[in-house]
């Protein structure tokens, strides 16, 4: 077990180090690509082996690290059902993304840097997931933060990309501060940093302190998982290469916040305030993301907002205490969101880096190999019955319904409305991109893409979509509702000690019927708008610059402008003041004046002397000698 656990983390790390040190010089391009993929699949194999020999939660200390008096945070890994299921998902999805990236980065000159960072990203995420203590988790947490920064701004020669990377880094840093405070505070309170120990101590503390700790962790999760109000970085993160977007959205970065809350849930779930805050944040974010996705024109931005929305669902599930449902949605979402991003990357590449959905259309016939997997992912996202996404989303909504009360009842309604909007925007995306006849009246100045002008895609970019599509569609088998036989994941995660109640079967079937009806209604709404004959009309209408509420949604509720007004501009003004008035005007100026004063004094004195260095030296020595004489003999 120990060897497997070590291999899970060390293999990606080794790949990153070898590629960073030797890639491009000693390793050929093909070798470094091969290495990057091989280490991830090796890590997947190690995870599989660990899953096979897994019997009970295991703690494995690799090396002792950070040990000082009472404080102890060694490199210890902790494998329990939660971390094991996440590791399986991460290594598998990232393995496919790496293969895809080989095709995607075929013509990029700095692919070695790309693969080294991609491997490091996976290693950091695995470290985060497997960490037994909070400092180690924090190391992984910051690791994914750094890697996402470096990869979002991967094409850093374009200033917009570099800015997007910095934005992601700075915004998530706000949340990280919360986690940092929580980590230190918990050590002060409990004298230990071990997560399993901490999780047993929730009831030892006054409720107020648990609430404060929980809110700090929620802040951390808000930054990392792009929840309201710290969600502004995620849509801009689309500046990175598409495999990076897929990896950030599906497997590594944004799920970290949800994972943190799930991991610490036995501790922070003691406080009803915290769970309510998590649930409200989640529901609000789900609604926010879905409404923004409704009007976006950029294919990748639609997916980005849909990720924000889906992560909101997971938070809602955590807030309702349904760890199993949240984990289930996390896993299924990872499959279908990776699938959608990789599919979108194929479409964009095939269309010569065209991202505007209004310039696409009719791709159903020209790119059938992309269309069918993409459709499968979209069905999951929309929550069409019997797909994985349907069951997982329904699990969360069912848990919220079960909580009852005014607050959770309201949140259930929000979740349902969001499910409707999700179905609408998903269907809109599929209909606009893949249906229709392909050639549209384009706005003046834009070049049209004929049907023959598609770029040939490498095979390696197409086939990772297929396993993901199968997993997304059949993901429901992981955790079927109780009336269809019991959920595997549910039984597996039972050992976490969360006592989740289950709905009566009739209620559950009713709720699923409602969810199915909502999804169908959403798809029909989109069909009436974008399908068949109305298509041209609606598209022509949306081609025009948006106004009113559409513009408001297009700009993500204008949150960026608000933050610019509230934070960025006052900060810039203050910095400019400090720079020009205080630093240059006050400090530099007085120093300059002093220097010129001394300079003039020196000039004046120099003009009186001979200017010979040796003479000055002699004078200095004589003066010193006089002083010594006076000190020895002359002092009274």
């Amino acid at each position, binding site marked *: 077990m120990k060897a497997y656990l070590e291999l899970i983390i060390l293999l990606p790390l080794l790949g990153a180090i070898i590629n960073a040190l030797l890639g491009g010089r000693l390793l050929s391009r093909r070798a470094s690509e091969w290495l990057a993929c091989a280490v991830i699949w090796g890590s997947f194999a190690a995870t599989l082996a660990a899953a096979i020999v897994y019997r009970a939660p295991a703690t494995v200390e690799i090396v002792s690290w950070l040990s000082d008096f009472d404080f102890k945070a060694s490199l210890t890994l902790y494998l329990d059902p939660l971390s094991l299921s996440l590791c399986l998902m991460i290594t598998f999805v990232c393995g496919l993304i790496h293969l895809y990236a080989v095709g995607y980065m075929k013509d990029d000159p700095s692919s070695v840097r790309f693969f080294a960072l991609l491997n490091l990203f996976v290693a950091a995420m695995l470290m985060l997931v497997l960490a037994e203590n909070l400092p180690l988790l924090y190391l992984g947490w910051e690791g994914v933060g750094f890697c996402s920064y470096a990869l979002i701004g991967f094409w850093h020669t374009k200033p917009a990309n570099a800015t997007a990377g910095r934005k992601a880094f700075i915004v998530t840093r706000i949340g990280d501060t919360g986690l940092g405070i929580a980590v230190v505070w918990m050590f002060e309170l409990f004298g230990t940093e071990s997560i399993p120990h901490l999780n047993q101590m929730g009831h030892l503390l006054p409720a107020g302190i648990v609430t404060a700790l929980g809110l700090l962790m929620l802040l951390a999760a808000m930054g990392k998982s792009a929840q309201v109000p710290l969600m502004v970085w995620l849509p801009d993160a689309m500046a990175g290469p598409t495999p990076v977007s897929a990896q950030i959205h599906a497997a590594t970065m944004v799920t970290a916040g949800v994972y943190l809350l799930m991991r610490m849930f036995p501790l922070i779930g003691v406080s009803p305030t915290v769970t309510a805050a998590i649930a409200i944040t989640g529901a609000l974010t789900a609604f926010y993301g879905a409404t923004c996705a409704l009007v976006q024109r950029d294919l990748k931005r639609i997916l980005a907002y849909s990720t924000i929305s889906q992560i909101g669902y997971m938070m809602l599930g955590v807030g309702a205490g349904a760890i199993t449902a949240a984990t289930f949605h996390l896993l299924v979402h990872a499959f279908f969101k990776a699938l959608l991003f990789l599919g979108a990357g194929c479409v964009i590449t095939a269309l010569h880096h065209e991202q505007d959905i209004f310039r696409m259309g009719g791709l159903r016939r020209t790119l059938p190999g992309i269309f069918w997997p993409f459709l499968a992912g979209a069905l999951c996202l929309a929550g069409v019955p019997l797909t994985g996404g349907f069951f997982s989303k329904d699990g969360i909504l069912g848990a919220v319904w079960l909580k009852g009360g005014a607050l959770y009842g309201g949140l259930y309604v929000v979740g349902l409305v969001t499910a409707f909007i999700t179905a609408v925007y998903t269907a809109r995306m599929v209909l606009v991109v893949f249906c229709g006849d392909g050639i549209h009246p384009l706005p003046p100045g834009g070049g049209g893409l004929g049907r023959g002008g598609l770029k040939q895609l490498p095979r390696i970019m197409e086939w990772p979509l297929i396993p993901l599509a199968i997993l997304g569609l059949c993901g429901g088998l992981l955790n079927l509702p109780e009336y269809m036989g019991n959920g595997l994941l549910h039984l597996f995660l039972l050992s976490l000690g969360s006592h989740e109640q289950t709905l009566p079967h009739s209620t559950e079937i009713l709720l699923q019927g409602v969810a199915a009806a909502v999804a169908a209604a959403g798809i029909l709404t989109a069909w009436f708008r974008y399908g068949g004959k109305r298509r041209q009309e609606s598209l022509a209408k949306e081609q025009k610059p948006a106004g009113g509420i559409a513009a408001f949604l297009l700009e993500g509720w204008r949150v960026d402008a608000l933050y610019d007004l509230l934070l960025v501009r006052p900060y810039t003004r203050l910095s400019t003041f400090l720079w020009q008035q205080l630093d240059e005007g006050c400090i530099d100026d007085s120093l300059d004046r002093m220097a010129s004063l001394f300079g003039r004094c020196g000039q004046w004195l120099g003009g009186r002397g001979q200017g010979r260095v040796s003479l000055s030296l*002699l004078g200095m020595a004589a003066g010193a000698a006089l002083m010594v004489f006076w000190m020895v003999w002359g002092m009274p």
Partner: protein
Amino acid sequence: MIVPLAHVLILAAILFGLGLVCTLVWRSNVIMLLIGIEIMLNAAMLVFVGGSNHWGMADGQVFALIIMAMTSAEVSLALALVVYLHRRKNTVDVDEFRELQD
């Protein structure tokens, strides 16, 4: 073998005197001037170490180490200056550099 403090001080004084004379007298070469300064610094260092030995305290040795570090920095800077001066006037004679007068 214990060297009395007085002997150390005498040696240091001799070294210091030699360095001073070298600095004052050897005008035809800036580098010799620098060497003189180094010898004086070493004399001071010797006093520190001798005192540290005499009173059994480590502070003086710490100072000696600091002086070593400082001296190495100073020498590298001074030699760079010498190279620069030589490039400007093609001489290392101390008395040739009298621009301070103007």
